[in-house]
């Protein structure tokens, strides 16, 4: 049984330790693939219930060559990114306000928490009624899902800025903007990026929820079409694409953490 889902360790010189670190990961993926292939091959399951990795790989090549996978992925990615931008922007702005004003927090906090008690999935149909089934409603779902974790982390991050450093900035006559730029932003960045990490993966979920409810384009649409046709291999392709997207976004934030938070090590 060979497995075709395998992570190739970079073989370049001088990266030996990196390659060695990647070995267990590659091995784990290999084992998973083997188990999957075994279950699909020997378990006697029909392909429309559990297609083997080979079948999924075949479907992947098909959908890549006819351009449909890329097309749908780009739609979903666009919704995810736009939703994140809107959600993170709104959450950061409101978070800043809440962290500055106890009064604002007292007034707004109950509403914010209440909106979180409503599952976005449950109000998604409403959003489609109000906004139509186009891009806007899906972006809004992403934004709503991203909003809360980023908001909470913004408030926590800004509140955790050391009082001593605030006093230092005051003794130096720093303006509000300087305070933000040189103290609050860098001090809150670790927590902010933590929120963004959660938000990035949640945003992908938001986009798919939207595409399930109002399917016209995107990976969620691809999955629901494939399910309707019992093209289970294509469902797998769609799911893996979503996973790859979430991993990619997560990796991007992790990269930003490494880049901007090196001082923490």
């Amino acid at each position: 049984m060979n497995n075709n889902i395998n992570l190739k360790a970079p073989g370049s010189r001088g990266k030996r330790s990196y390659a060695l670190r990647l070995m267990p990961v590659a091995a784990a993926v290999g084992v998973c693939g083997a188990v999957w292939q075994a279950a699909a091959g020997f378990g006697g399951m029909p392909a429309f219930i559990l297609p083997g990795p080979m079948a999924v790989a075949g479907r992947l090549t098909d959908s890549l060559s006819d351009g449909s996978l890329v097309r749908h992925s780009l739609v979903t990615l666009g919704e995810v990114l736009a939703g994140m931008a809107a959600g993170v922007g709104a959450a950061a702005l409101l978070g800043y306000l809440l962290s500055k004003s106890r009064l604002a927090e007292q007034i707004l906090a109950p509403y914010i928490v209440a909106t979180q008690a409503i599952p976005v999935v449950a109000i998604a149909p409403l959003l489609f009624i109000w906004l139509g089934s186009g891009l806007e409603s899906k972006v809004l779902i992403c934004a709503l899902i991203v909003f809360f974790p980023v908001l909470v982390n913004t408030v926590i991050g800004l509140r955790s800025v050391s009082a001593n450093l605030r006093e230092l900035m005051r003794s130096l006559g720093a303006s509000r903007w300087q305070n933000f730029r040189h103290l609050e932003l860098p001090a809150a960045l670790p927590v902010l990026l933590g929120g963004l990490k959660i938000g990035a993966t949640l945003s992908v979920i938001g986009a798919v929820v939207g595409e399930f409810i109002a399917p016209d384009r995107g990976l969620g649409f691809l999955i629901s079409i494939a399910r309707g046709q019992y093209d289970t291999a294509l469902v797998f392709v769609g799911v893996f694409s979503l996973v790859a997207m979430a991993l990619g976004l997560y990796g991007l934030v992790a990269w930003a953490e490494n880049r901007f938070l090196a001082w923490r090590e």
Partner: protein
Amino acid sequence: MKEKILEAIHLTKEFTGAEKELRALGEVSFSIAREEFVCVVGPSGCGKSTLLRLLGGLLRPTAGEVLFEGRALAGPSPRIGFMFQLPNLMPWRSVERNIRLPLELDGTPEAEARAAVKDLVKLVGLTGFEGSLPRELSGGMAQRVALARALAHDPEVLLLDEPFGALDAMTRDRMGAELMRIARDRRKTVVMVTHSIPEAILMADRVLALTSRPGRLRLDLAVGLPRPRREEMTYTKKFGAMAERIRAAIGEAV
């Protein structure tokens, strides 16, 4: 005596707590001459730190006022440098960039800031550590960075709030000696809060002793020991007598 640079006039500070008002400082008046080195001592809770924050414009007095060069002080001034008990360095900034912070905030031109920082790094003996991060520094080194940062604007007055309080005894002595050297070289007026009576006498031209709750000025003692000061002076009779007077002044109200 040289001209007065800093004056406290009937300075009073009350903090409004949840239940009652706390009178931290009750009508304190004194003046400090240019290039004078003054130490403020007193038991904990006597309002020494409050007094220092009032002198630096970080707190507003409930009554009375602070005059800086003859004018009422309305808030923090770049001509008054502050150094706190903890180094308060920004952990994401290197040594060099921590020292540079005050210059960045007031928009000092790049070339000028660079030259100033280079000079300060040398002054506090941190050459070779410019690129280090705060987490890589010892307590003494971190406090050197804080001192350099307080000096960045080349302020007339340095206000120091127990700057060596968190350091071990040996580092503390060495830092004290360096602070005296820098204050003399750069002709700074220094007001330093400390809870160590020997440290105060050894470093200061004048010692102000406060009593607690509310803090009141109980003793204003000119030290009159020759400079440069040496550790050995601690063991002289004169030194002991001064320490005794200060201790008695602080102790009276306890």
